């Protein structure tokens, strides 16, 4: 780690200091969110264990800055200041998403610093986005929203460009949050006449992987794509273990210590209608998700903890169980099979765009719907109205969230 920082500082210090060009952008968001809290959800009985604000107001910005130090050298920074307020308190935080320096030599690029490396062609999930898998993201949010709010990793990398293909070598040192060094090798090729591009990835880390991405233009109006990752190594999944069936039961939530191997696949297609509307449909098989048996164990754990907490049996223990159950939840990634749909209709009426996203857990049939309206005030600003509505049985994935629905009203200004 120290060696990496030394290399980064050295690379900055030897770069020519004459700045030849600088560019940047600033986007500001102001949004209010209202959540209809459930009075007695399974994961927060009688609203007693966890406190969720009904309403939040968030002001955040995305600041991009790039400077060309010379024709060969440049550095780039992305910073995200966030001011979040509820009725009772406000908090400010700042996230440095990217800060890296890059050196160009002929058709090749070498970089060091904090950078977001994103891979994959899917929308509902990106199983080949190996550097992104440990980042906590809210998958109930629109893919645009959750991807733009993503912190980069410390990387040392190189991209090499050849005619019609390119390849990359990336190293990420271990850190406080990622306990092992990680390496990624990837190659991308375009098969022009087949209207197809293909990328192959090899990832080495705690849970290694081999990935293939393919996208192809089928007709003038449709595109097909697939993203596949074969994973092997240490399991990343938290499992619920019934240690003792006494009264009260003793459970343990822990990382699965076994070595695992599984496959994640996204199959998708998008179609453009004559009126410029688009329909995207995806199927996501998540081999690393909870099997129906594992989900039944987790559901039983939640039901047992809830019932005994409300009955006043070992309340501290049950409170701890419920808190642990909440920490395991990662909505949109729990199951092994999902169906995803997104319909976008630009110019629904004058200056107003509409989209509807649906995500369905194909194992328990629960789903979420996200209608989204955008009204363009002018070329640089818009207001938006969005809702998340969850549906499912009490112990299904989208039946479990502690609130339903969630409504957001916001404005976005592209200041510069």
């Amino acid at each position, binding site marked *: 780690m120290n060696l990496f920082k030394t290399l980064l500082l050295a690379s900055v210090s030897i770069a020519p200091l004459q700045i030849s060009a600088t*560019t940047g*952008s600033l*986007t500001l968001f102001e949004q209010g969110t209202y959540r209809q809290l459930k009075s007695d959800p399974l994961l927060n009985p009688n609203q007693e264990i966890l406190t969720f604000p009904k309403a939040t107001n968030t002001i955040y910005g*995305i600041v*991009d800055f*790039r400077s060309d130090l010379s024709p060969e050298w440049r550095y*780039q920074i*992305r910073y995200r200041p966030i001011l979040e307020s509820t009725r009772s308190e406000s908090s400010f935080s700042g996230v440095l998403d990217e800060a890296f320096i890059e050196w160009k030599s002929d*058709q090749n*690029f070498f970089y060091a610093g904090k950078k977001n490396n*994103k*891979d*994959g*062609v899917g929308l509902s999930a990106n199983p080949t986005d190996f550097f992104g898998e440990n980042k906590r993201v809210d998958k109930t949010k629109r*893919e*645009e929203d959750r*991807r*733009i709010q993503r912190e980069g990793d410390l990387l040392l990398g190189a*991209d090499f*460009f*050849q*005619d*019609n*293909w*390119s390849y*990359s070598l990336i190293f990420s040192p271990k850190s406080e949050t990622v306990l092992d060094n990680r390496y990624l090798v990837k190659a*991308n090729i*375009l098969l*022009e*006449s087949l*209207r197809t*591009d293909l990328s192959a990835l090899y990832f080495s880390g705690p849970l290694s992987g081999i990935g293939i991405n393919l*996208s*192809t*233009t089928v*007709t*003038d*109006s*449709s*595109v097909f*794509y697939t993203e596949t990752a074969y994973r092997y190594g240490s399991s990343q999944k938290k499992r619920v273990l019934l240690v003792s069936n006494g009264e009260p039961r003793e459970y343990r939530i822990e990382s699965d210590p076994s070595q695992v191997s599984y496959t994640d696949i996204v199959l998708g297609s*998008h*179609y*453009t209608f*004559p009126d*410029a509307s*688009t329909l995207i449909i995806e199927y996501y098989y998540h081999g690393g998700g909870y099997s129906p048996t594992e989900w039944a164990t987790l559901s039983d754990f939640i039901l047992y903890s809830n019932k005994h907490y409300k009955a006043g049996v070992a309340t501290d223990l049950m409170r701890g169980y419920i808190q642990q159950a909440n920490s395991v939840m990662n909505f949109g990634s729990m199951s092994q099979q999902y169906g995803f749909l997104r319909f976008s209709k630009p110019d629904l009426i*004058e*200056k107003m765009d509409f989209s509807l996203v649906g995500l369905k857990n194909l194992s328990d049939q629960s789903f979420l719907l996200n209608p989204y309206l955008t009204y363009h005030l002018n*070329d*640089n*600003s*818009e207001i938006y109205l969005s809702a998340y509505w969850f549906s499912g049985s009490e112990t299904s994935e989208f039946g479990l969230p502690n609130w339903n629905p969630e409504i957001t009203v916001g404005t976005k200004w*592209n*200041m*510069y």
Partner: protein
Amino acid sequence: MKRILFGLIALGISGSVFATTPQEILEKVDRNRAPANTFTCRLKVSSQKEDGVSKVELLIRVKDAKKSLVLYQAPSSTKGRVLLMVEDNLWVYIPGTSNPIRISPQQQLMGQVSNADVARVVYNIDYQPDSVESETLGNEKVFVLKLSAKTKGAAYKAITLWVKPDTYLPIKAEFYALSGRHLKTAYYKNYKTTLGSVRPTVLEIHDAVQTNSITTLEYTDFTIDTTPEAFYQKTYMERFSSQN
């Protein structure tokens, strides 16, 4: 019938002109539209609707006529967005939000202007001339070329193109959908000497249905480009985006 008659007259009085094949005429028109197979230019797109005018400014790099990188430079809401077109393959990159996404040729990014309208500045890659006729447009004698799509990536099923017979400068074009429906009409205007030849620098597009909808494409700053061919790839789009 009138067109055939004009065609026969033209054949009779100007046989030497039609010694030039429709394909050669189209290639000459294309040479007047684009200064070279490889070049850079800036493009301002103004879309006029009932509720006002929206403007987009683009930087376009073209390689060997069939590869294009288009960078959105204004307004700030679309700044940094990149469109890549390689033959029939199209991708869009939206900064910060995603990887480059493959899109279909029909997916429009800007009002009445198709991706191909922006990324392609020649016709002969995607269209073949089926016939040429002579006609009078106003008081001017013109050639009328009938083009049909020859690639899957062509944005239109057919195009009718009006051309000045002496200079091979395009005057007007009508664009038709797969169904045969007339979609829009484009007028070539503001002829200027650019990189050694007179070329149209403004393209005014009128929607055939929403007659109040007019989109104007204004080309400036033509230069010969030296971007390596290897950079016309989707993996380069993020870097091109940050050159804003």
